[in-house]
């Protein structure tokens, strides 16, 4: 039985100046099912709210329409008042008479008519409202952080320091990521490892952090607050409990000439190795592809020398299952392999190197212990050319975006070179210098002005070898596109930053979306840059788009706060305005025919498959099911469902249909 109360607010004179509120209330009192209809000066005031509460009790109201301001303003207020009056808060609707009527129209009959129409739609709607209760979702207060670079490290530490458990997984044998490879960092030129290593150690020692290195995400199920992650711990062939990290095995390993990933191929490592001396954890792994034992079936030198018998050749990958409530994805970025521009001769000429390789050359822990030496002959390059935008901002190469960090690190590289090679000549070819950031522009100016780095604005068309020298051919656009040819001993390419090779696959495992470049997509570019569209999954650092260190760190801390917010409650409370698939009696069970076309329409992967089986377990039909933890209530699925089997609470077919009918017909 519908017993609707209508409350028309004057909003002082905001509404009543142009709308005849009394007439609105009077007209509404004549509608079927309306048992109470009044107008009042300020509905949102205490006495106004009391009016509602009292009427709910006195008239036994089953629904309330407050005709006042925008629901975006006061809907929570009036829903709360209804709740206090003993009515389900979702049995209250608002008719927007102020923002959508009195403020935008002049005083007159037409304005009052409109107000009446709007009230009528809400009366018809509220008649069909259903009492709803907030959805409570329990929260597992453990976070999973994927990726042990600076972003992953920072977010793990922040979450852990809030008192929550963190599981950090890193695909490589050590955490540290790209930052650990860097020599110095812009714009302060402080030593990257010096600032990073303490954080790495802190992670390893933090009681709230469980670290799995050499581990990857296998699969993910569940939803916000309630994920189940399967983690594949790749076999290290080392018993981590027994290994003391003495390093004897790595020194005795007969296979020593494997290009070191950490040194970007500029140095070597053995088959059993720790990537770099400060690695966390300091436990080696056996590279099964290059290890003689795994190739030929014999060797086992390491096993012989290991004092603690920690070598386990037949160790297998281990899958562990963990329950987590939130996930931070901090998988970082990849570097476009420069072989995709043959015109720069990378791979052909050993002295054409990437920026990251230069980092290793410049690093005190690198293959040359910090001396800038040419890979080809170990000579110190007298003349060096840096090519910025090697791939970035190049639509033809498929990377129209700016990689953002290259301008700064190229300036840093040139500066480091000038510091290390006295009398050296460095030239930077650039398109534009993008140095927006605290102290960034000053840094670049310093390189140009104090360290006499020569900046040439123009694109390099080719790098080739002539008489044992590299010739860099380009144009100087500031000099009217004059062709320039520069002789160089070494060329450094500021190669574009790209998404990690496995990003797409990971996104699919996580059910998060990604953009055309395979960077993970944030929920909202402005207001939700850290959240993804999948509730409970955040992104931090360069996996979302190329970021420098300070940005990655702030994003990581931001993600940690998002996780901490989530973990601050034992249960998540969510508005119940979500989609529901109808269910009915046998033999139909639901009008859903299981075409699952809604699945591809859902931006939140909230639609799952439910199998209806008979008592013997035989499948009767598969139907769609909305995961209330994931559904955000957009209703895209609703408009898409042919058989109208899915409906959205708060905006049901019955409600909106009757709203429209009420709008257009006399009642």
């Amino acid at each position, binding site marked *: 039985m519908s017993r609707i109360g209508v409350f028309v607010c004057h909003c002082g004179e905001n509404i009543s100046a142009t709308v005849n509120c009394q007439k609105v209330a009077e007209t509404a009192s004549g509608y079927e099912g309306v048992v109470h209809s009044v107008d009042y000066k300020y509905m949102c005031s205490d006495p106004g709210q009391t009016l509602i509460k009292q009427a709910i009790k006195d008239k036994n109201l089953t629904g309330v329409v407050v005709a006042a301001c925008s629901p975006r303003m006061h809907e929570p207020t009036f829903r709360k008042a209804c709740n206090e009056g003993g009515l389900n808060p979702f049995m209250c609707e608002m008719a927007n008479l102020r923002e959508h009527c009195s403020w935008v129209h002049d005083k007159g009959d037409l304005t009052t008519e409109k107000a009446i129409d709007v009230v009528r739609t809400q009366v018809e709607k509220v008649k069909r409202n259903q009492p709803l209760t907030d959805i409570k979702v329990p929260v597992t207060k453990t976070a999973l952080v994927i990726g042990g670079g600076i972003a992953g490290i920072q977010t793990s530490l922040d979450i852990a320091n809030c008192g929550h458990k963190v599981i950090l997984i890193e695909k490589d044998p050590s955490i540290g990521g790209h930052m650990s490879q860097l020599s110095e960092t812009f714009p302060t030129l402080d030593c990257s490892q010096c600032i990073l290593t303490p954080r790495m150690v802190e992670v390893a020692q933090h009681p709230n952090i469980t670290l799995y290195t050499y581990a990857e995400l296998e699969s993910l199920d569940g939803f916000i607050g309630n994920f189940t992650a399967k983690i594949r711990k790749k076999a290290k062939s080392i018993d981590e409990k027994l290994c003391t990290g003495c390093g004897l095995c790595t020194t005795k390993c007969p296979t020593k000439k494997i290009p070191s990933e950490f040194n970007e191929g500029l140095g070597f490592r053995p088959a059993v190795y720790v990537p770099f001396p400060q690695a966390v954890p300091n436990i080696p792994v056996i590279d099964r592809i290059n290890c003689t034992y795994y190739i030929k079936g014999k060797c086992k030198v390491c096993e012989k020398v290991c004092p603690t018998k920690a070598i386990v050749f037949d160790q297998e990958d281990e899958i562990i299952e963990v329950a987590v409530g939130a996930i931070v994805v901090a998988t970082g970025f990849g570097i476009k392999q420069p072989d995709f521009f043959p015109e720069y001769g990378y791979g052909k000429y050993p002295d054409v190197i990437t920026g990251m390789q230069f980092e290793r050359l410049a690093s005190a822990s690198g293959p040359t212990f910090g001396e800038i030496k040419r890979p080809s002959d170990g000579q110190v390059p007298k003349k060096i050319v840096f090519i910025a935008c090697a791939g970035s901002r190049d639509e033809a190469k498929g990377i129209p975006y700016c990689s953002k960090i290259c301008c700064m690190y190229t300036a840093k590289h040139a500066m480091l070179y000038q510091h290390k090679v006295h009398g050296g000549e460095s030239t930077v070819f650039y398109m534009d210098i993008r140095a927006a950031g605290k102290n960034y522009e000053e840094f670049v100016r310093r390189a140009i002005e104090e360290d006499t780095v020569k900046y040439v604005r123009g694109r390099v068309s080719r790098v080739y070898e002539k008489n044992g020298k590299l010739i860099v051919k380009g144009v100087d656009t500031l000099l009217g596109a004059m062709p320039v040819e520069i002789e160089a001993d070494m060329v450094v390419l500021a190669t574009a930053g790209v998404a990690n090779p496995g990003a797409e696959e990971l996104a699919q495992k996580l059910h998060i979306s990604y953009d055309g470049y395979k960077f993970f997509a944030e929920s909202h570019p402005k207001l939700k840059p850290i959240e993804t569209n999948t509730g409970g999954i955040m992104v931090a650092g360069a996996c979302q788009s190329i970021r420098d260190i300070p940005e990655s760190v702030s994003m990581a801390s931001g993600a940690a706060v998002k996780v901490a917010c989530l973990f601050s409650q034992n249960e998540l409370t969510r508005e119940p305005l979500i989609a529901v698939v109808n269910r009915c009696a046998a033999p139909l069970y639901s*009008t859903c*025919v299981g075409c699952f076309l809604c699945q591809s329409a859902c931006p939140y992967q909230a639609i799952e498959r439910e199998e209806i089986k008979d008592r013997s377990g035989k499948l009767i039909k598969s139907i769609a099911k909305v995961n209330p933890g994931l559904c955000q209530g957009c209703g895209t699925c609703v408009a898409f469902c042919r058989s109208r089997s899915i409906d959205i609470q708060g905006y049901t077919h019955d409600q909106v249909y009757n709203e429209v009918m009420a709008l257009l017909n006399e009642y």
Partner: protein
Amino acid sequence: MDELKKRAKELLETGAVKVVIGYEQGTGNKTRAAFIQKPEEVSRLIFDSRCVLNLAVYLNKPEVKQIGKPAIVAPIPVLRAIIQLASENQFTDDNLLILGITPESKFVEFNKLADVETYLDQHLIEIEARDKEILEKLDKMSVEERWNFWVEELSPCFKCYACRAACPMCYCHRCTVEMNQPQWISVPSHQLGNIEWHFMRAMHLAGRCVDCNACANACPIAIPLNLLTKKTLEEIKVSFGGYKPTLTGGHIMSTFKPNDKENFIR
């Protein structure tokens, strides 16, 4: 045909399938669906240009399902329907055997749905020239003329739902017209309700219609319903690059491109 019959017989003899759904001679000059359940009855199977009924419509019929695993005689439109239905989770490789028929009336057996999908790449949906001409003729009319054309055409519809029943894509257990809270489309047949019904049906088939013409063929009063679906097919071609049934990947209307046209949006 002999090859088809031979294979059908084999399948029934070995028990690989319980029924072969094919075409047989009907009354007069009509052909119709045949449900061959005994090997000796395969001689009834025929195939010629009169066989236009889309047999895929039977795959979801409970009584047919109850017989057991079927093999289905499938000219191109049926193959398309099968792939579209499979993409909508209506069946898998395990519960269907496909006896394909090429446009040259040659028998070709498909082991997997994926093979059918590949095969269909060579047979993309093309609207027949005759129909294109009608579409163009309608396009050239003024809005009022087109409105009058459709009011005239659709008014006589008495909602027997033969179009829906003959359409392999109309397999909902409860059609929207049967949902009555709210009653989106009037149960009685009248001008308005008829327009709404056929409009909605065309929208529901957008991006799913395999252009088999079953709806128009089924209409007892010959309303050219297929023009509606053909028009949407054309629009999908122009705006989204065209429709072809695929087993994986999103549905045309439930996916999007960020650069879909929006010149009509302010």
